[in-house]
């Protein structure tokens, strides 16, 4: 008997770039992608605005940005020449599960032209030939590190809502308070790190300026981390001695890659990924008893809290300032000490997952990963990761086995 996925989706069109082979004029891989995408859209009559899932060997962010679309399923599996068959497999599963109806799988590679164009640098999967046009038009202006970008969003958010940088400093202070309850946190105590232990809002504001208005204590650390989780079927879960934490909802989105393309500097695509996750879960922001939010910078946490519906627009910081997110508050956030004071290695999504699992499985206060007071009673938790320059977002709604 065929599996349930069998015939759950079909390939409905296929096209190529305008000129392929030994191109007379050197062509970039990006242009080959875009021409093929335009042609398959024309062939099928499916407008590009209807594309919901984008599958490519590492190109999906740039393709979506270039096309100006906001997908809800993003795949960049790049394992060699067979990747595209795998993309079809993944698209089949995504369509079968009801997450998307229309998937785009795209390829562009300029093996011939690249030799003429030379290297232009670029990301994994891009291929040789040229920098992205976004990089070409922004590389002259001295940006590079994450704070050099994120500070622009903070200034716009302050301007739009009449906030001061001190408002956001409360996020760093409260998150540090959480870190003092976590022996594994890099900033747990003065004994563990000279700059560890409790901090004040004034200390946050007076610390070294990185990119105004972000001082160093508004910024996450860059340290070492390794982590892993296992996801399994209910049947397997029932056979284990560990407590399951159920994935009630999940969503993903992106709005841009380069910050140049961030239309509204006060909002991220978490508003879309959260909506998808809440809808899948049949739960809403008011049902969330805890949040684990990527806090690369204080501004990231503030905006994300707003996007997740945990606070009104412009008032995300008030969750921390008013003590609701703090130890003893009614909506604990970043109970491990966050990327600001627990650990941030560059990509903080895994620590978010681990802390959410520990909290919802009742293992957050074990003397190693938590002191007395770290374990919360929350049965629901919204988890949100942010990638790039406030570019990409993934949201999960997790619930405990007791709920």
């Amino acid at each position: 008997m065929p599996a349930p996925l069998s015939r759950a989706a079909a390939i409905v069109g296929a096209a190529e770039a305008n000129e392929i082979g030994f191109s007379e004029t050197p062509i970039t891989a990006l242009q080959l992608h875009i021409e093929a995408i335009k042609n398959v859209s024309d062939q099928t009559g499916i407008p590009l605005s209807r594309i919901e899932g984008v599958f490519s060997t590492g190109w999906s962010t740039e393709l979506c940005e270039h096309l100006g679309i906001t997908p809800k399923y993003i795949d960049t599996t790049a394992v060699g020449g067979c990747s595209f068959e795998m993309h079809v497999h993944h698209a089949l599963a995504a369509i079968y599960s009801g997450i998307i109806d229309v998937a785009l799988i795209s390829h562009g590679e300029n093996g011939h032209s690249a030799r003429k164009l030379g290297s232009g640098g670029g990301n994994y999967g891009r291929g040789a030939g040229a920098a992205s046009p976004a990089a070409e038009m922004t590389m002259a202006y001295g940006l590079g590190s994450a704070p050099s970008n994120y500070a622009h969003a903070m200034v716009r958010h302050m301007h739009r809502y009449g906030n001061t940088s001190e408002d956001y400093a409360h996020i760093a202070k409260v998150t540090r308070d959480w870190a003092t309850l976590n022996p594994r946190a890099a900033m747990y105590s003065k004994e563990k790190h000279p700059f560890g232990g409790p901090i004040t809002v004034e200390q946050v504001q007076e610390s070294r300026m990185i990119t105004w208005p972000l001082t160093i204590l508004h910024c996450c650390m860059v340290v070492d981390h390794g982590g892993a989780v296992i996801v399994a079927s209910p049947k397997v879960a029932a056979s284990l001695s560990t407590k399951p934490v159920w994935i009630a909802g999940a969503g993903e989105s992106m709005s841009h890659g380069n910050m140049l393309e961030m239309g509204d500097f006060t909002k991220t695509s978490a508003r879309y990924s959260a909506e998808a996750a809440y809808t899948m879960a049949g739960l809403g922001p008011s049902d969330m008893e805890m949040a684990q939010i990527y806090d690369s910078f204080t501004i990231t946490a503030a905006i994300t809290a707003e996007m997740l519906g945990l606070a009104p627009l412009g008032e995300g910081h008030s969750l921390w300032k008013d003590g609701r997110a703090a130890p003893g508050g009614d909506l604990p956030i970043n109970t491990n000490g966050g990327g600001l004071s627990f650990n941030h290695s560059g990509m903080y999504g895994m620590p978010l997952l681990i802390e959410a699992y520990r909290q919802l499985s009742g293992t957050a206060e074990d003397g190693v990963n938590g002191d007395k007071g770290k374990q919360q009673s929350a049965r629901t938790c919204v988890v949100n990761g942010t990638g790039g320059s406030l570019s990409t977002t993934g949201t999960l709604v997790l619930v405990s086995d007791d709920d």
Partner: protein
Amino acid sequence: LAYSKPIPKPGTHTQPFWEGTKNGKLMLPKCDDCSHVHWYPRHICPHCHSTNLSWIEASGQGTIHTFAVQHMTFGPWAEEAPFVTAYIDLNEGDRMLTVLRGVDPEKPEDIQIGSAVVVEFEQANEDVSIPFWRVVEEG
């Protein structure tokens, strides 16, 4: 004095822009079908997905959308720090990144979002002139 900062390498579809900057003109891509101007230059209109695109000469005027002051940077720009970076809302639509001129990086509270700016060009080498934006004096 030789230009010491990173210099963009003109791409395969962006020559009209770089030809423009060499001649003191700000050229922007515009869609022939939906009339939207977009930035950065694309192979397809990000608004209506038409591929009928043309280049227009822009006014070279805009306003500050947001900004930041770079104190800790890397590479050739580090010796300039602190300096102000800004995103500029172009009068024709869409947005550009720049290092903002005509402002004091030590007084960020004096820099106003919405202030008028004009473009100017700095020759980096014989092929590339780079646009920078400068705040227009009040009054």
